[in-house]
């Protein structure tokens, strides 16, 4: 059984609220012991996930709701687990694979970034409606995630 989150946030699907969520997460990650760059990466991953929900899930509608839960992990080693849940139409989790980066295009970077900066990241359909992503990052592990993500890219 998962313990209840240390911090939960429910926010409206508004781009202008993203900076507040990032600030909260940078502060939490630093408190856990992550360095400046790695704390920034945690905030970046969440920012990308939220931006995708706002753009793709909610089609830029600003009055929808997003819920973020964060757990401070202490055992077996310090880290952070973040779960983000929306109420948008469900899609095949396969879309979160991320695209081939050799083809230079303006879009298609968000999912790749999330997978790259976090240790693990898992997208799924929620039980009733909406999608869920759960991501984790542990202290003192490399940010490379070749093996640990379900659909992980192999980053050279």
């Amino acid at each position, binding site marked *: 059984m998962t313990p209840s989150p240390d911090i939960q946030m429910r926010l409206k699907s508004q781009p202008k609220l993203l900076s507040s969520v990032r600030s909260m997460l940078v502060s939490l990650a630093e408190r856990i012991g992550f360095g400046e760059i790695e704390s920034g990466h945690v905030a970046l991953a969440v920012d990308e996930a939220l931006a995708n929900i706002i753009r793709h899930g909610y089609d830029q509608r600003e009055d929808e709701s997003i819920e973020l839960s964060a757990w401070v992990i202490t055992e077996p080693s310090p880290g952070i687990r973040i779960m983000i849940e929306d109420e948008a139409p469900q899609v095949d989790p396969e879309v979160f694979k991320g695209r081939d980066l050799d083809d230079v295009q303006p879009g298609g970077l968000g999912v790749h*970034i999330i997978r790259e900066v976090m240790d693990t990241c898992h997208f799924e359909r929620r039980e009733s409606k909406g999608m869920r992503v759960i991501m984790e990052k542990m202290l003192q592990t490399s940010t490379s995630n070749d093996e640990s993500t379900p659909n992980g890219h192999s980053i050279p």
Partner: protein
Amino acid sequence: MASNQDLPIQLDTITDGVVMRPSGDIDLSKAPSFRTQIAEVFQEKHARVIIDLSEVPYMDSSGVATLVEGMQIASRSGSKFILSGLQERVRSIFEIARLDTVFTITRDLDSAERA
């Protein structure tokens, strides 16, 4: 808070073009304003457009996507498009997106004007 969706960008004229110096985080809330202002600059036909990112502490993929678009407009119009002054955190996202070798990126403005 409508006006807060505008990204403040300082514009400076140089010999063969223009320097755009945005300030503040560039995320989903600011990327549209960034895109509009870049498009406006390209309507003027400059040989060189330098984006000075020294005042941008944070950028996400929506900002990066806007810059990829800028690079594509530049290559169509035969202009040079140069990024300069990236802070470490911003440089890191270009590396993750494997775009650090696709863009012309210079350390500072001086090198950008000569690149």
